[in-house]
């Protein structure tokens, strides 16, 4: 097909971009059997999903995610999903919340390479400057108060988790074949 009209070309490009956006979905698998809730932090509803089912994450709210499970939308706890084993799209936990335009690869920008760190010359003059930087303990209270930061009085402790097993090669369609799930003791608590 020979497209000469520039407007048609732009239109085709636009459609192609739209299609690309549609296919760039984020599919995750369920760690455990779960029921969809009708809202974030809601009670489990009637739609049940098997461990290993594949869902598409639509958005995240706090520690909850809205998912599309084979055409049925609902909410799950983020901890019920396996993000490492995401099967669709390069950005496993990119839920689209941030839009798509703020991170653009550019050849002008460069990072610190391993080579910079290994073969660079140490700068001890800059260390003297770093050494002079610190905080005034007397000012901390005011800084915290101004920011409205209220220290937690509750016991805060996380348990060390074991790294996830490698994801299974193929994910099953929603709710069909349960994959072996590494189930943790407290995961069923709501």
């Amino acid at each position, binding site marked *: 097909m020979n497209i000469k009209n520039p407007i048609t070309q732009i239109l085709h490009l636009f459609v192609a971009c739209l299609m690309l956006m549609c296919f760039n979905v984020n599919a995750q698998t369920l760690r455990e059997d779960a029921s969809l809730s009708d809202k974030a932090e809601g009670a489990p509803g009637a739609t049940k999903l098997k461990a290993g089912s594949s869902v598409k994450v639509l958005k*995240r709210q*706090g*520690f909850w995610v809205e998912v599309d499970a084979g055409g049925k939308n609902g909410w799950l706890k*983020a*901890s019920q999903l396996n*993000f*490492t084993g*995401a099967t669709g799209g*390069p*950005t*496993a*936990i*990119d*839920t689209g*919340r*941030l839009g798509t335009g*703020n*991170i653009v*690869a550019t050849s002008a*920008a*460069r*990072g*610190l*390479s*391993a*080579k910079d*760190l*290994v073969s*660079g*010359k*140490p*700068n001890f003059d*800059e*260390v003297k400057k*770093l*050494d002079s*930087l*610190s*905080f005034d303990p007397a000012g*901390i209270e005011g*800084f*915290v108060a*101004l*920011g*409205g*930061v*209220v*220290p*937690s009085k*509750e016991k*805060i*402790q*996380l*348990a*060390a*988790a*074991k*790294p*996830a097993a490698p994801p299974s090669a193929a994910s099953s369609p929603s709710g069909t074949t349960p994959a072996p799930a590494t189930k*943790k003791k407290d995961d069923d608590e709501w």
Partner: protein
Amino acid sequence: MSGKNILALTLCAVFSLAVQAQTDEEKVGKSASAQVLGAAPLIQNDASLKYVNMLGGSLSAYSGAVYKWHFGVIKSDAINAFAMPGGYILLSAGLLKNLENEDELAFVLAHEIAHVTRRHHYQVVQRQRLADQAAKGLEAVTQDGDTAKLAQASGQIYARGLDKSAEFESDRLGVEIMTKAGYDPVAAVNVLEKLQRFKGDDPRAELLFSTHPSPAERLDMLLQSGIDKLPRPKAKPSPARAERFQKFLQSI
């Protein structure tokens, strides 16, 4: 001179010596900092550096360890942060520009604070010293006064990165520190989500990705550690908190 006065003077002298004395961790930390700063110097904005030190200082109170903390921001597009032994922490301007609020910055700082308090890099240096001693049968080069050589050896450690387990541990302890301090643990998820948006071949994030587990893996580990069961702050962040963070962001 009375006995009381002598005791007071002695205590002052001991305290002063304790404050002045440079620990081996600090010596290693300075050399490692010199190597990173050789690649990218500090930004020159006093107000920004003061802000990041105040925030870092307020978080360090919940780390359970006493160090002379020094927080700096380096002029670099890189998406990275470095924790050096002895309490030296450097954040890249590139990473900071991708953050949205103070709570997210609190997670980044707390993660680095945890690396220091768990002595992750210092232990690698110590192991290297022992290996050097065993290989050479004499005082290892990294143990003598040659800070330049120590800096170069440190550079290799930062280029290689730590074990995954050390990164997971710093994520976990970092979340604990920031939550105890009063920041929202959800910010840790936000930061990991932002990191995941960078591609592995993006020169800004290349070193971060080659030295850290994937952000998705880190998120999974935090979720399985029970981050979603932690209490979230009841009050919304004050306008002053948002304002000072935006001011900081604009100045780097």
